[in-house]
């Protein structure tokens, strides 16, 4: 009962934080002479106004769900995975190369899972390395992850600018994946692919592992109190590596399904910050599956509607990032909202 009330309060804070962010950006637009009402109505139009718009929103939300789960899983275990960006690149690249090197005579139902699993393995190892360095050397995982992000980004960039660049291609990208390995579209002529179903399945799996398995229980125990968990017999060192590895595998899926769904190939720098947005998603969604889905839909719709907003209201499409960033700041600072309401009551 108490926990329900706590969740309800958190949900309330989240909604107020989101509202504040929209309000603040609305005021900024007003000061700059743009029409915020027109901007927001066209934002809504661009995100939900047609079946195309909705499929765009959903397709932008899918990678956010994976990274949100990745960060959320680590957070539940008291660890901070800021390395999603790197894991996305490693996962996407490994899977793309696997997909391109599997001989054509192998049927898609073998080849596709194989390629996807190689990508997940890449993210698993890349994330696990952070966990290992944290567990064995006691170095802050945030700092290690920042280094690993840039190493992953520059390394994959090097590969697709040189050894793995597509023939006669001006842009740094791999060859296009065979059609049979590309994920089928749910709605033709949109970017929405069957990765949507995988995202939902992963949310269900995440919920099951956290609530119904011993490992999930151990993870939550570590998140509550690392020392108490260790005293209680949880193998903290081993689990730190495992949590970061699984988190890395989840983040990698965001990259893999962008490569196999949205783009059909690995393109240099394609993530452009999805890994960092995932941190916001996990925080807003309180690391719960439903919360992560809702937060992803919010940010997905912002990204999907930004273009329409820019066309109709004249403001730069990048204003969606200002809203996203403000939501992150307000959600991470619940005391601002508590403080404001306390002031009002007095």
């Amino acid at each position, binding site marked *: 009962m108490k926990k329900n009330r706590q969740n309800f309060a958190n949900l309330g804070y989240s909604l107020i934080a989101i509202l504040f962010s929209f309000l603040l950006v609305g005021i*900024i637009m007003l000061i*700059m*002479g743009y029409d915020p009402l027109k901007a927001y109505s066209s934002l809504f139009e661009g995100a939900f106004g047609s079946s195309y718009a909705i499929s765009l929103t959903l397709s932008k939300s899918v990678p956010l769900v994976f990274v949100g789960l990745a960060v959320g899983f680590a957070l539940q275990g008291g660890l*901070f995975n*800021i390395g999603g960006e790197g894991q996305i690149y490693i996962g996407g690249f490994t899977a793309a190369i696997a997909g391109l090197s599997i001989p054509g005579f192998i049927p898609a139902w073998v080849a596709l899972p194989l390629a996807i699993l190689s990508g997940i393995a890449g993210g698993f190892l890349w994330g696990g390395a952070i966990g290992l*360095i944290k567990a064995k*050397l*006691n*170095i*802050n995982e*945030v*700092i*290690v992850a*920042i*280094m*690993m992000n*840039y*190493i992953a980004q*520059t*390394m994959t*960039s*090097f590969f697709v*600018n*040189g050894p793995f660049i597509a023939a006669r291609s001006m842009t740094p990208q791999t060859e296009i994946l065979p059609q049979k390995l590309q994920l089928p579209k749910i709605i033709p002529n949109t970017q929405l692919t069957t990765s949507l179903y995988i995202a939902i399945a992963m949310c269900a799996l995440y919920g099951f592992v956290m609530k119904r398995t011993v490992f999930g229980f151990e993870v939550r125990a570590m998140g509550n109190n690392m020392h108490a968990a260790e005293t209680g017999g949880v193998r903290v060192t081993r689990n730190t590596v495992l949590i970061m590895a699984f988190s890395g595998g989840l983040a990698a899926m965001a990259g893999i399904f962008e490569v196999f769904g949205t783009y059909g190939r690995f393109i240099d720098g394609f993530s452009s*910050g999805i890994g*960092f*947005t995932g*941190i*916001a998603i996990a*925080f807003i969604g309180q690391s719960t599956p439903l919360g992560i889905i809702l937060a992803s839909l919010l940010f997905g719709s912002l990204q999907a509607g930004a273009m329409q907003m820019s066309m109709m209201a004249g*403001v*730069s499409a*990048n*204003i*969606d*990032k*200002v*809203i*996203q*960033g*403000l*939501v*992150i*700041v307000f959600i*991470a*600072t619940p*005391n*601002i909202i508590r*403080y404001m309401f306390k002031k009002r009551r007095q």
Partner: protein
Amino acid sequence: MAVASFAVNMLMMTFRLAVPISLASIGVSISERSGVINLGIEGIMLLGALGGVVGSHLFGSAWMGILVALIVGAVIGFLYSLCVLKFEANQSVIGIGLNIISSGLTVVIVKFIWKKEGISGIVNQMATYSIPGLRTIPVVGAFFTDQSPFILLTFVIALVCSHILWKTKVGLRLQAIGENPRAAATAGIPVALYRTLAIVAGSCLAALGGAYLSVVHSNLFVNNMVAGRGFIAIAANILGGWNPLGSLLASLLFAFTQALRFQFSAVHVPDQISQMIPYVITLFVLMGVGRKARAPAKLGVLE
């Protein structure tokens, strides 16, 4: 002679490339010595870069641009300290939020002022200076020939900050806060005030580094022109041992690896590899030093 002038060119290019990273990195050192992590350095540099261009655009002088950038840095630093100190927010998350806000807000403001997406108009750039008497000295003369004052300024700032941290009461108190905030508070040190000042100073230095990119090194703002230098600065600070002079040296090392790729374009080191080097070095140094890393004991833990 050719070899000597090549070496001088290489040196000057290293210095020029090192300025923005060094300034931000010294800022990171100061802030982290007080126990506060700021992952938003990248965003603050970007806002500083924009501030520089806007200031130069409005007032017609690059120096006014620098001033505007410093004000922007101070304001952002203050807001950041408000969030993490007064409202006890998670530092890493706020930093990331700040980066995302900055990457969007800068483009929005550029479009508002110049009606262009992602690139500003040309503004007045800072003039270079030459000192007639000193420019004829071999090798050292290059310092005094057609250079921006920022190279010397960066060295001075590093020395001054190092002096403050280790030789003054204020600096030693700041370090005490980073090592053990509770003990410092018990000893009567106003912890929150010191931390706020450290964050604001660090943020100003990062903004200055950003403004160097936009109005000293170039004469316009381009979308995402900081391009990861904020994170390189965080790495340089670690490699430099959370210490302004160390940060400067590490930044020079990183800048040198960048300069190599411009000077040895014939040998062809791929860009991505030379970009990767700072992060690989830092990661391995961290792993090598491990537990013995000289980080402030209570870094990122606010009590």
